[in-house]
């Protein structure tokens, strides 16, 4: 029985002091390194043209601008890791936005927030139930509820912006306040991102989400109650989308049924995918997604700052997205066969 050593040579297990650089790469991940490089390159490029870009004010502007889409990107990452997709997040945010403003008008800010989150939970449950009990593919299910929730938001609001929250201290605090010097919007994103990161990375719940996304049948046979995870993740998505809706209300000062939330689904999917989440499931990190959100935020901000025409912005954004992902893929060094994951 002395063949053991050969059988498991385990060079990685033997801590033969890898170089510092390699350890950093290992910790951050190859994909994230590419994103970091892209971010740094972009910062240098934009900053060189307009030094105002480096101002602390502008950092705040970028941070608050990405907060809402960042929240949805974080939660979309969880859904994607589980091997699904939620196209309805924007509609839920819109519905929550009008609901929060309307309830606020009659019952005050706390009930407004609570009501919106309640609606988020219900919407998430509806998505989850359609998928779990109706056996509908997540993409189709949430494509359908995208339309349905939007219609609901328009119905309850009659298509109008509702209420006025600009004079309320709580909503003003959300929109313009700070916590320890950090704008509330950014703080909310940071807190939720960290929470989700911790859950994904360090808890059995998170690990099971990766397992379900990696192989749902194997997970099921290993005793994971997959349906509970699907329901749970969609409820989480609903809640975070509702938070995003509340923040939209706070920022615009009124409940917006459609404006400001439409199109958030593609944005969130783009960020998650750029951050390294595989649409087949089982792979992705919050760190990567947040880096992608920052990259996209800097890009938009920088192009506007440099006065790039909106049409060129589209072209540039598309091109940069391709370049960033191509570099990521080249660095990842996967086998170049089959359809790219």
């Amino acid at each position, binding site marked *: 029985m002395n063949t053991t050593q050969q059988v498991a040579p385990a060079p990685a297990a033997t801590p033969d002091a890898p170089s510092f650089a390699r350890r950093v790469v290992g910790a951050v991940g190859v994909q994230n390194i590419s994103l970091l490089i892209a971010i740094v390159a972009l910062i240098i490029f934009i900053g060189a043209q307009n030094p105002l870009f480096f101002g602390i*004010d502008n950092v705040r502007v970028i941070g*608050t601008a990405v907060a809402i889409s960042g929240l949805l990107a974080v939660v979309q990452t969880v859904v994607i890791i589980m091997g699904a997709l939620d196209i309805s997040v924007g509609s839920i945010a819109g519905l929550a936005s009008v609901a929060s403003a309307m309830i606020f008008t009659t019952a005050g800010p706390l009930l407004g927030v609570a009501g919106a989150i309640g609606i988020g939970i219900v919407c998430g449950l509806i998505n989850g139930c359609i998928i779990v009990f109706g056996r509908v593919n997540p993409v189709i299910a949430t494509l359908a509820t995208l339309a349905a929730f939007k219609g609901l938001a328009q119905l309850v609001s009659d298509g109008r912006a509702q209420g006025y929250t600009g004079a309320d201290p709580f909503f003003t605090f959300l929109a313009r306040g700070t916590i320890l010097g950090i704008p509330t919007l950014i703080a909310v994103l940071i807190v939720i991102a960290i929470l989700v990161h911790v859950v994904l990375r360090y808890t059995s719940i998170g690990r099971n989400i990766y397992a379900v996304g990696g192989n749902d049948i194997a997970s099921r046979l290993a005793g994971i109650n997959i349906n509970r995870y699907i329901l749970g993740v969609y409820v989480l998505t609903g809640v975070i989308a509702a938070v995003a809706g509340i923040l939209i209300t706070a920022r615009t000062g009124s409940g917006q049924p*459609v404006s400001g939330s439409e199109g958030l689904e593609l944005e969130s999917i783009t960020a998650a995918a750029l951050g390294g989440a595989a649409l087949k499931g089982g792979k992705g990190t919050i760190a990567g997604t947040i880096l992608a959100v920052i990259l996209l935020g800097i890009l*938009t901000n920088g192009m*506007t700052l440099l006065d790039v025409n909106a049409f060129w912005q589209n072209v540039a954004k598309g091109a940069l997205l391709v370049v960033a992902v191509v570099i990521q893929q080249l660095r990842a060094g996967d086998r170049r066969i089959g359809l790219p994951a």
Partner: protein
Amino acid sequence: TSGQEAASTAQSSGPKSGKLTIALLQKQGDQQYFVDEATGATAAAKKLGDVDVKVVNLGTDANKAISEVDSVIAQKVDGIIIVVPDKQIGPQVISAAKTAGIPIMAADDSIAAADGKEIPFAGFDGTAMGTLVGAKAAELYLKDGWTAADTRVLSAYKQDQPNCVDRVDGAAKAFTAGLKGAEAPKIITVGTDNSAPDAQNKAGAVITGNADVKHWVVWGCNDENETGVVTALQNASISPANINGVGLGAYLTCKDWKAKQDTGNKAALFISGVEVGKAAVTSMVDLLRNGKALPLKSIADTAIVDATNWEKAGVVCT
């Protein structure tokens, strides 16, 4: 067939009696202004009696506009009122209606047939709206005694929407004209998706790039754009006194006024969608029932409103 067959134009032959169905096809039917317009149209129909208004939302989709025109023609409506998503589709829409012998009028955005002749129109078109906004902005600018050197104009709109382009172009022209020879400040355009949060985000970057500017004039394609930019300015600690925002629609700007907030939203153009809807349906029914020709232009009531007079002007603030 080639599709070019001469239209056997059975021009609306004389007055009709009995029940009438009028199609109201609207671009962006989920926006507040157009919801109001539909409400006004329905109300007018009810008052006139035995008239049905069929409201169809076209979104911003020019192709859907064509489909829906075909659709209401097949449904044999008695008259069509259309707010086109894009003026360029005017000839197609008009010829389709003419071929079917159904009277058609435009609302909010005037359209012309292939020969360049405009059809009857109710409302207030984009350029005219912009003109009022620009003139008001110029008035405020002169009143406050700002100078071109330390002032910038922020013009926020969705750049691929022709209606928006008409509006802000009109505003820019009227603004320069309204300065009575004074040097005009630089106008910075901000491309947005027409939503308030996006206007806020994009304006944030522009404000960063113009940190030394003292005074700001703001307008946009709609209230979302204008209030979004004003919010961004105020978030950048620019005092409302240094902001002259002129909204378009008044449905969002009114909220600050209603709450008696000190705000950079100084004024807004208010157009009563309800009135446009009423006017359009009334003239159409008049044509169908009494054979009275459609008025070539029925301009709706419009007014620049501000914190002091918005309620009197009839702005509904939800």
